């Protein structure tokens, strides 16, 4: 069924279709409508599920960790400070190989306190061992959730998956969303069958201490797992297409890159704005395209290397920053293309932090700048008057 729905409510409805056994979350802007809507769905008896109110995001993550360890399909959602409060649990969840699905409404991290969108929150936990997906629009975001459970619970994977959606820009936008039927989702995503779980009938110990003699091997095993997740992600999308007719998948997506000399690289909803700008620039004869990073972990290095083997110039457009370090997407991207025979020049720009609107003119401006010479972590869209006044 297709209808116009707010992004967060659409996610809540999609998650409900996946029939989680246990949901635990704590309200935080701009994620809150997900938990509110799920609480209502459970309260209305439309979903048989334990909905647990907790006293913090830390406990929300811990509760779904416990539920998953006991064999339940478990879900939580958060944002920004909440995600950072969960961070210790996220590492633990991944290390214990628990297939929890988490939605992050991407939001800036304080200080200054700011409820608006950027990617800093999720980027900060990117090394925890989560599979990280970035939604371009709300249909993509809903489809990602059905696939996220399937990927997380795959016997070859058994890892938490985080679906990222830009705060406000996607979370609070109303768009037409196509929802699958419950019967079809039940077919696509059968009941969760955990491989190992806490049970009095098989009384094993979970979460053992791994000393210097064993810890290295556990991390090696996780690294090896991440090497073989890509086919699982691709298959989840292929199976989805077979069943629902639309393809929402891929590690990356190339847009108008056939003959592109310049390629804009980014993630999330920014991709839509870049595509719009690229269409305009193409009309003016510029050979330019967009490369979408849809999956940040496992990092699609081989796909990116291949996709960027022909262009002259790459421009990373980033909504997060490693203070004192290089552009985050740019650094990873450079490492991916290092062995390419024809290395393009790589510029990167910081835009849209803390919800600063990304206008089409900003995109034209940064392309123009990069064409004049390589730019390193340059800010676009700054209010220079405010900058000058800041320390007066």
């Amino acid at each position: 069924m297709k209808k116009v729905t707010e992004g967060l409510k659409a996610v809540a409805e999609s998650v409900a279709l996946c029939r989680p056994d246990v949901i635990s979350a704590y309200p935080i802007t701009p994620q809150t409508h997900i938990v509110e809507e799920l609480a209502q769905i459970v309260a209305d008896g439309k979903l048989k599920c334990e909905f647990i109110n907790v006293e913090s995001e830390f406990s929300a993550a811990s509760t779904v960790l416990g539920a998953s360890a006991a064999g339940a399909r478990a879900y939580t959602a958060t944002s920004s400070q909440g995600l950072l409060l969960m961070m210790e649990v996220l590492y633990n969840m991944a290390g214990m190989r628990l297939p929890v699905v988490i939605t992050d409404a991407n939001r800036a991290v304080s200080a200054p306190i700011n409820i608006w969108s950027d990617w800093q929150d999720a980027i900060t936990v990117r090394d925890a061992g989560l599979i990280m997906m970035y939604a371009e629009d709300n249909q993509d975001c809903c489809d990602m959730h059905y696939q996220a459970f399937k990927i997380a619970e795959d016997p070859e994977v058994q890892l938490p998956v985080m679906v990222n959606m830009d705060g406000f820009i996607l979370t609070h936008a109303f768009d037409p969303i196509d929802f699958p039927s419950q019967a079809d989702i039940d077919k696509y995503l059968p009941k969760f069958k955990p491989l190992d779980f806490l049970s009095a009938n098989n009384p094993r110990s979970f979460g053992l201490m791994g000393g210097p003699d064993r810890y290295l091997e556990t991390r090696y095993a996780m690294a090896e797992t991440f090497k073989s997740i890509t086919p699982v992600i691709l298959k989840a999308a292929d199976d989805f297409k077979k069943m629902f007719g639309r393809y929402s998948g891929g590690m990356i997506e190339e847009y108008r890159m056939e003959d592109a000399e310049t390629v804009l690289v980014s993630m999330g909803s920014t991709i839509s704005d870049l595509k719009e700008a690229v269409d305009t620039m193409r009309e003016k004869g510029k050979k330019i395209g967009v490369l979408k990073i849809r999956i940040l972990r496992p990092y699609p290095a081989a796909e990116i290397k291949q996709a960027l083997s022909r262009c002259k110039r790459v421009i990373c457009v980033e909504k997060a920053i490693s203070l004192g370090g290089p552009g985050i997407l740019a650094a990873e991207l450079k490492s991916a293309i290092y062995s390419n025979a024809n290395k393009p020049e790589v510029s990167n720009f910081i835009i849209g932090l803390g919800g600063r609107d990304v206008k089409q003119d900003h995109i034209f401006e940064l392309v123009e700048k990069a064409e004049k010479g390589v730019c390193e972590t340059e800010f676009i869209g700054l209010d220079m008057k405010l900058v000058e006044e800041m320390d007066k």
Partner: protein
Amino acid sequence: MKEVRLHGRGGQGVVTAAELMASAAFFDGKETQAFPTFGSERMGAPVASFVRISEKKIRIRSQIYEPDYVIVQDPTLIGSVDVFAGLKQGGLILINTEKKPEELKLKPGFNVKTIPATKIAIEILGRPIPNTVMLGAFAGLTGLVTMDGIKKAMQQRFKAELVEKNMQAVERTFSMLKN
């Protein structure tokens, strides 16, 4: 693509109005997108919401700076908020007031229409919530969304008895300002 900006105060249903308009356009077979001001505003504070309606898939996610249409749900906002900001020359602005456009003494160059939406809302709905009333007037004026679309949008969003009353209001204002 047509872009609409709706002005109101927190609690007046300005986001719901945008949602309904987008949903109506969707039922009319158009591509659509709606979103609120991404703010931390509280009840009573000036707020805005936005709608895009197009024949083609809408990709752009930036805010709306040059709307084709502006709807002002609360006339007390005029003066404190620049409701004309970015409005295209000759663009339509629909204001909820019992006054006639010429009585408002607004800046020239725009197509100003007025409707006593709050009065009609109290009459028909029994509550001073002008959002659906204004939606009817807007549809009549612009033809951007149809009565059928609005009805389907309401049926999806509201309970049956609410749909009936709101549709009465919409039908009244639709014909009042229909070109």
